[in-house]
């Protein structure tokens, strides 16, 4: 089960855009499945969870050096016994003069890897996870080029208005031709009956005469204009206050693409409130320092952006110590819910098992963070209507409650958030 889920997640990440276009449901299901992972496999150490919680600050399963080396195929490079010792306490190995240990230590700028209070089983689980991931890593890019299957959907969507326009043009042409034919016929009849040819007037009077003679066309044009105007107006009004795709410049050019996409740092490493609180939280700069004490140079902006963190926390790079002079970073808030709407991250992330990307989009591809979803009430409600509540494994959804719901909605009914009262006013407004 764990393998399947992990795979689903990677694929999900790689092809997020197509994924969302194709089906929101699939991604939700994946998210829900991922959330039950801790419940289903807590009997033995969960390598993935351990890795993400402890290792991702400095390592990726890949070739890149973050703080420490990329760990792809690390199990083939070193013996398991040695790895266990190293992970548990690398410095004791170095001090003991272990040649391999000293070599690694010196190779990576003599940055000491902290000791981890893991059991042997836990370290083995982490290594197993790295092994799995190493095997998967090269396979991922080959799993279908971008847009391989999503493209059809996009094409269909684009083609739709085009056919409509074509049809409209054809109809208009037909209408004009028929009108012409009718005029010609009337002329013939008039000539046959001896009715005199109407005098064609010039200038303003001419326009008036034309208008009088073509009331149907005028009416048609007015109707079309009204319909288009109304639709446009409605859409404009609806878009007021909706800040979808809002991507303001931030005081630090922080790249989610680099940190999440490339370095694979788990969202919740920085946004730790997501599982505990209504606020996911913007990480305080002291959290950034966990890595940036060592990572002093970024691939894109060099030291420029990272130095802003140092300025905020008061870190003297030369002396490698804190000065005590702190300065808050004023980020520009991207996701703004109105005050009368209550939203709780932990309800969705911890209880609902919703993937961050479901609402925030492919963050791992965003160089500049933007508001992915419209965050309108209609959008919230739609998801609450579509999403099936995962009840198994949570004692809150008791047997008794489940029975009552079955009685109310039928045994086979899809128990969505809405059916459990998730679209009632006072769930979000109080």
């Amino acid at each position, binding site marked *: 089960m764990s393998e399947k889920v992990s795979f689903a997640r990677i694929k999900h990440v790689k092809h997020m855009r197509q994924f969302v276009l194709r089906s929101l449901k699939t991604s939700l299901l994946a998210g829900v499945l991922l959330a039950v992972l801790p419940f289903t496999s807590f009997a033995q150490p969960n390598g993935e969870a351990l890795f993400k919680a402890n290792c991702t600050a400095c390592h990726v399963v890949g070739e890149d050096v973050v703080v420490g080396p990329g760990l792809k195929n690390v199990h083939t490079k070193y013996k398991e016994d040695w790895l266990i010792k190293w992970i548990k306490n690398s410095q004791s190995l170095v001090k003991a003069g272990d040649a391999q240990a000293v070599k690694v230590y010196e190779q990576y700028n003599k940055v000491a890897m902290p000791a981890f209070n893991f059991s042997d089983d836990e370290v083995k689980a982490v290594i197993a996870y790295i092994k799995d991931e190493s095997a998967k890593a090269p396979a991922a890019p080959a799993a279908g080029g971008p847009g391989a299957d999503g493209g059809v959907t996009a094409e269909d969507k684009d083609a739709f208005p085009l056919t409509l326009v074509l049809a409209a043009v054809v109809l208009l042409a037909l209408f004009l031709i028929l009108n012409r034919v009718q005029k010609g016929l009337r002329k013939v009849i008039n000539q046959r009956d001896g009715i005199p040819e109407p005098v064609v007037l010039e200038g303003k009077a001419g326009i008036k005469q034309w208008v009088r003679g073509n009331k149907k066309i005028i009416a048609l044009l007015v109707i079309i204009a009204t319909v288009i105007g109304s639709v446009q107006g409605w859409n404009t009004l609806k878009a*007021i*206050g909706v*800040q979808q795709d*809002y991507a*303001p410049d931030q005081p630090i050019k922080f790249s989610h693409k680099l940190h999440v996409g490339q370095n694979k740092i788990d969202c919740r490493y920085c946004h*730790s*409130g997501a599982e*505990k*609180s*209504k*606020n996911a*939280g*913007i*990480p*305080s*700069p*002291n*959290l950034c320092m966990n890595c940036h004490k060592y990572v002093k140079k970024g691939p894109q902006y060099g030291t420029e952006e990272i130095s802003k963190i140092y300025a*905020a*926390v008061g870190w003297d790079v030369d002396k490698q110590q804190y000065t005590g002079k*702190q*300065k*808050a*970073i*004023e*980020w*520009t*808030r991207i996701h*703004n819910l*109105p*005050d*009368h709407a*209550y939203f*709780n991250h*932990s*309800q969705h992330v*911890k*209880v609902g098992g919703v993937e961050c990307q479901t609402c925030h989009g492919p963050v791992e591809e965003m160089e500049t963070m933007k508001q992915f979803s419209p965050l309108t009430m209609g959008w919230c409600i739609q998801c609450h209507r579509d999403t099936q509540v995962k009840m198994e*494994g*949570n*004692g*809150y959804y*008791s047997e008794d*409650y489940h029975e*009552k*719901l079955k*009685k*109310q909605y039928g045994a086979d009914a899809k128990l969505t958030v809405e059916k*459990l*009262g998730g679209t*009632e*006013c*006072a*769930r979000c*407004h*109080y």
Partner: protein
Amino acid sequence: MEKRYWKGVEELNNDPEFARLRDNEFYEHLPVDEVLQKKADSTDSTSRRDFLKFVGFSVAAASLAACEAPVKKAIPYVVKPEEITLGVPNYYASTFADGNDYCSVVVKTREGRPIKIEGNEMSSVTKGVSNARVQASVLSLYDSARLKQPLAKGKSAEWAQVDGQIIAALKEQAAAGKQIAVVSSSLVSPTAKKALAAFLAAHAGSRHVVYDAVSYSGLIKGNNSSFGLSVIPTYQFDKAEVIVSFGADFLANWLSPIEFSRQYAETRRLRNGKRALSRHHQFESMLSLSGANADKRHKIKPSQQSAVVASLYNKIAAATGGKAIDAAATPFDKTLETVASELIAAKGKSLVVSGSNDSNEQVLVNAINQLLGNYGNTISLERPCLLKSSDDAAVAQLMNDATAGTVGAIVFWNSNPAYTMGDAAFKSSLGKVPVKISLSDREDETASQCDYVCPDHHYLESWGDAEPYKGSYSLMQPTIRPLFNTRQAPESLLRWAGFSTDYYSYLTDNWKSSFFGQQSGISSSEAFWNQSLRDGVFQASFFMGGSSTFIGDVSAAAAALTKPASGPEIVLYEKTGLANGNQGNNPWLHELPDPITKVCWDNYFAVLPSYAEKMGWRQGNVIQVSVGNATVKGPVLLQPAMADETIAAAVGYGRTKAGKAGNQVGFNAYPFVSLKGGSLVYHASGVKITKTVEDDYKLASTQTHHTMMGREIVKETTLAAWLKDPKAGNHPELIASHDGPKTPAELDLWATEKEPGFERPNHSWGLGIDLNACIGCGACVVACNAENNVPVVGKDEIGRAREMHWIRIDRYYTSDTTKENAEAKGLGKLDMYGEMEVPAADNPQVMFQPVMCQHCNHAPCETVCPVAATTHSSDGLNMMAYNRCVGTRYCANNCPYKVRRYNWFKYSDNEQFPYNMQDNLGKMVLNPDVTVRSRGVMEKCSMCVQRIQYGRLEAKKAGRRPADGEIKTACQQGCPTNAIVFGDFNDTKSEINALFNDGRSYHLLASINTKPSVFYQTKVWNREGEAGHSHA
């Protein structure tokens, strides 16, 4: 016997004004013209064109404004404190002790900001309950009238500068051989007392004088005369079966009301198989909260009280073989016979208390309790109460010394005598003191006359402790960094005594050295400190007991008693909200309606209606009252149940330098306090009253606005009847139909079984209110204000019936005419209803009923909302979506309980409402989980849906069902008597289910079949029969 209750004197008299208010809910002229800048009386009214212009402009402006979204900033912590998770509250145990009330509390903080105070369940003294003043105290933290830095000679100064000058000045005075005095209210903090002792030790000729504006000096002196111990005993109301109180309002203010209310309610609760009630007699002059709850209330004039106590003593002494004293006959002797026999029948299980500050009366009360064998049972001298240590004689002595010029320096600490003692004599005495220092948190009446003001922290910013009873300790810890450049009062004293330690270290050292040894469970002093700080309380496992041999001289005491006087008298009292007035700038307390009169934002002279009629006064007339040199003007309030020829006035009002909200509210009644025999006296005879020609004064009251038209609203019965029939007084209301009488449910239009989708598969929330436990104090109202961001609207708006409180407490008086006895009186139908409104008794019984949104399952409000802004949830809540509401107010019109409130104005950021929601400081008290409502929308009790949602989410995250009692509403948590229970009807084992299935449960206005989620429990009185404390 069915009694009729009426809502107020206005209803009883059928005032034309009342009828007008009753008939027209929205009786006022709507100020459309004024809004549109035209005078109402001018002939050119707004034209259609003008109107369209306004509309056009508004729409255009609104659309333009909406186009550009404001840029908001998000600023994270630089270094996030480990214990804080944004959006998750933290709770800290602390202590509220302001010299008036004591309460062990738990403070809820959000992002480092205290926003709500709850009782601490681990406290053996207050046991998790609180009162209105404790609930409101969090707002006093964010009071913009607080001083932002120390003052020297009225100018802002730095601490170092002030300290230097004060130390020099004190040295100079001590060298000159002058006294140095520290005047404080009662100190309950042992460590602060230690710091004070250090200060006194460092200054030769210095002393500490305890001055309480509302003094307990007589009680302490009385105990000294009786037992040779200058202490206050422990009173245990919960062990008493018969309670007799002489003017002691122990439910609202007397001594330790939070504790006593909870204890008292235990004796009034009929739950878990308990089938007995205490019997409560109250002798008093004005209608107090305790009197309103008494089974039997006896009206006496203030000067008669001592004689009544003496007479009761003689009757009990005669029966128990005590020594008789010289006591004149009183008009109450027959009643006293009954009271005495009831007390004797409950020997060792009764309790007699007196609110008098006369030590002689207290000696007699002690003697009565001694004869009844109550010591060691309901009263104990083993662990004395340390809440009060007032010493009126010492205060008088200090004032004399000051006048004589022998006092060199005075330090005022939590004491404001310029206000409470503020006569000319005090001013001239103070003028003769060369160095005057105040530790007040604001430039109040006293501080503004001082040379130095060294502002104290608010208690939520302070370290501290308290010892309310010998051996019961509690800790106070800061829950926010000091907002201003202030310093703790004890730390200031330590500084001036030459200590440089900060008060936190001083406190921890004292705890580790003095209290650590009083327990044996924890072996390390560090662990002991941490444990005590976490719990907030610490109970010493051993302590010194005191002896209790009665040595009082009853004859001497009887001879020195106050003699009954004739003519008009005045009695002073404290209100449930403001008490002695030390939180005088707290708008929540000002706006809390008085439990009895339902008047907000004022005090007044309360008089008996028949007395007022005799004197030619009407409600609102301004009268001038003089006693000796004190003359005060104030409005008349007609108050049934007052003693004849007596006027009652509340102290705590008429502040002049409290702050924006509290200044010039009401009048100051403290000048009527006099000093007799070394004790302050809170009543006076020989009162001269004249009616002034001033315009009538408008009192803002919440009582007459929502009439219930004499229907059966509060159900009641007597203990004897209830013992026979658990449904006594609570028989279903039947409705006449063509098939004969039917229950409302049988005539239901909405036939629920045919209506799918009305299921409650998950939760079914409800509230149960036990009217037997409810004492009507109003703590729930303030708790609700704090939890739900309820705005303060001010006196003017209250006068327009626009109060915003989500919960109100209805108070009803009885009338003697009932449907049953009307026939005997030969009254016809119309006459009968007329008579029901006529004042029948001078001493009506009083009932309280808290009313909030009833969360009807057949809600009349929901069906009339044109925009579906108020709807029903699948767990039984009546929901209100503010942003959907367009303000038609149909729902309020259709609500039979009148619990919906309309936002006539935007109450935040509006200069018209200069209360807490106007400035950034005051807004820090707002609960971030609850929307601040804007103008033009309806609001009402949500049953604390934010707490429900929070509790459910916590349960979901932990993968379990919410436990019964885990989720509590604010009113429930604030209630000092645990009268309110919240729970899930779907949880078969829940407390609320057990209560609901009890025979006493009923729905308010059940006949209209609204099927509320809130239910009440019949009030059971212990009134029938003379030996009323029945046991079954």
